[in-house]
């Protein structure tokens, strides 16, 4: 075919040696080329109105953010709700989660919590109760409370950090776990540190500065 334009062919052209990684960052041999995903907690204060949760969850699904849990509940202000999201993403992805959340008109403020923030989850664990004494002993070990019992089953409520819940479930599994229901993580910052500011003033400025939470969050 005759079609085409003139000029040096692709292989005759100079090509720069530099490259970027998948996240669009120029690769500097001195620093790590790619960012590994890390788990973190993002807290968002939102207007308490219908549709907010679907806006937020829709945002997560259509942008393919890797979400671990999402909880929502009312706050001290009846017009506002708090959404706590646990995500596992590389740093640029976590930045995007925050920025995209801020774009939603119903979102008042968004913040990634420090690793030392208080995080709790509640789980209801229904186990076979053939050995009720042992079940009670395990429940005690995890500060669990038996909330229902029948000749065949016992349901224990456990609250705490995610690891504690996982460990409890692990231990309970020796009795045979029938059903589990978990809430996902909810969290608040420690002390006087505000979990999410009640105004949006800080948001744009933050976007200008990159924050590095190098420390991987530990559940307490």
């Amino acid at each position, binding site marked *: 075919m005759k079609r085409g334009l*003139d000029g040096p062919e692709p292989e005759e052209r100079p090509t*720069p040696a530099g*490259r*970027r990684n998948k996240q669009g960052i120029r690769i500097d041999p001195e620093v790590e080329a790619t960012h590994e995903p890390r788990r973190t907690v993002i807290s968002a204060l939102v207007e308490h109105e*219908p549709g907010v949760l679907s806006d937020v969850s829709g945002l997560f699904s259509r942008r393919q953010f890797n979400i671990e849990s999402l909880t929502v509940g009312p706050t001290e202000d009846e017009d506002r709700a708090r959404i706590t999201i646990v995500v596992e993403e590389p740093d640029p992805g976590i930045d995007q989660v925050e920025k995209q959340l801020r774009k939603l008109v119903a979102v008042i403020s968004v913040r990634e919590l420090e690793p030392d923030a208080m995080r709790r989850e509640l789980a209801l664990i229904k186990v076979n109760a053939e050995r009720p004494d042992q079940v009670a002993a395990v429940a005690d070990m995890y500060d669990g409370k038996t909330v229902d019992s029948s000749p065949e089953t016992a349901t224990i409520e456990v609250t705490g950090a995610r690891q504690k819940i996982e460990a409890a479930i692990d231990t309970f599994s020796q009795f045979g776990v029938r059903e589990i229901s978990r809430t996902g993580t909810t969290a608040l910052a420690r002390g006087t540190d505000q979990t999410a500011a009640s105004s949006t*003033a800080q948001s744009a400025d933050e976007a200008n500065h990159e924050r590095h939470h190098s420390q991987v969050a530990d559940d307490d």
Partner: protein
Amino acid sequence: MSERAAKVPPAEEEQDDDQITDSAAPDAATEDAAETESEGPEPVTSGAESVVRALENAGVEYAFGVQGGAIMPVYDALYDSDIRHVTMAHEQGAAHAADAYGIVSGEPGVCLATSGPGATNLVTGIADADMDSDPMVALTGQVPTEFVGNDAFQETDTTGVTTPITKDNTFASDSDTVGSDVSEAFALAGEGRPGPTLVDLPKDITKGETDREPDAPKVPDTYEVQERADPEIVDAAAERIENAARPVLMLGGGVIKGEASEACREFAIEHEIPVITTMPGLGSFPEDHELSLEMAGMHGTGYANMAITHCDTLIGIGTRFDDRLTGGIETFAPDAEVIHVDIDPAEISKNIHADYPLVGDAETVVEQLSEAVDTSPEAKKWRAQCQQWKSDYSMAYDAPEDEPVQPEFVVEALDEATSDRAIVTTGVGQHQMWACQYWTYTEPRTWVSSHGLGAMGYGLPSAIGARLAADDDQEVICVDGDGSFLMTLQGLSVAVRENLDITVAVLNNEYIGMVRQWQDAFFDGRHSASDYDWMPEFDKLAEAFGARGFRIDDYDEVADTIEEAVAYDGPSVIDVHIDPDANVYPMVPSGGDNGQFALAEDQL
């Protein structure tokens, strides 16, 4: 029959005639309205009247839509309004027309549709406005509140459907506040990074009585826009620019939306920095200027793509680094430190990491940068290199007399036959790329196209919207493809009814040409479903609609036919039979290296 087949109010067409010719004098029309209503407007009595009052307060002159059952109360209120409603032949056309109106005028375009199918037909146009950040307000009818959720006749969860493709949407729930909902939608659509907003209007809410006037347009308190960039980062970026050896200014659609073209021109010319544009940025910098390297990206010029690949400092303004621009991320401007100016913080480092993130209004930030840059970069060698690339990879084509007409020739002839301020709209496909490459854009808001969404069928309806937003002396040329035109050509009925001076040039190759090009390159030439040899004769079709029809088969017909079609005062369609084998080059294969663009098929 469905309720949405309800008739258009007859009197509306009567009042049209004198206003159409007068469309470019909106101020006069508004003043007239103010004079005749010197006692002030009548108080509102219903939700629908409040909705229309909100539109009037926002200065709306045109609204594009289609009547229907659930939206009838709003249309009833429009009956007494000075807002000119343009009834479209299909809601998709209404959304595209509103979108184009927004692009050309800078003010949010308005489209209306009824519930259910009316609303879903708007979806393509809303998604298009969302991808391209065009200001637009969509008003959709909804079934009465008591039926919502019951799968009622013509019910769709419109706010649910449009959540991912709107900047914000609202389900109106109160006749007293529905007008304010519309005012807020208006304010949001145009504020900060523009985009489409939607208000869903249940019939009982618009029919409901109220005496509440809508609030003034105001964005919610939770929506804040940062105008000025962080001065420290501005200083650091300025220093980087001063020390740059190979700087490039890359202007995106945000430059045009942010009215920053002038500031960017001054900045580039003062510091002699080569300029490339993205596709939505066409017109932000005059392409006939020496510093212009024109458009970069998949079908950008070879010189723009060489410059972007080899620059050491990339100043991206109002661009979102779309994949059609960047090609593969790994090879995009791999040596460049990136200065990124954008009003939307979420665009910063989304695709390409920004070394100097400057969040703010494009014009303001460019002015900040202008103040901060004291000395121009020493880039004489770089500029010479760019000029060298310009001659190495010049945009040229062969046009032998004895062969079918080349599309590039037609685009250039159209450009020549019209003024610098002529507005080009396109569909999506090969013709769109030729219109990018071979038209010389010099002014902002003269290029209207579907960039991010790539919606075929965009050309004609957007020409209608553009025509009504444009000045009288601006020609509106729709460069379309045969496949694209076929998708929305029922809009010709609207153009004829309104006697809109639009020239449609259909670059007809009887193919879905871009698909055919890709099939030739990547699918062993298997033309699965891309062969459109069943195309109608568009010139005759145009005549059937009451428009003027022309046909071009040979080179010697091109100039005269175009002249006649452009001169015709009304809609005209030129069926241009182009070389069916013509392809678009240069081309960066999807995800490829911009610097490795192919100049011909065998280089792919």
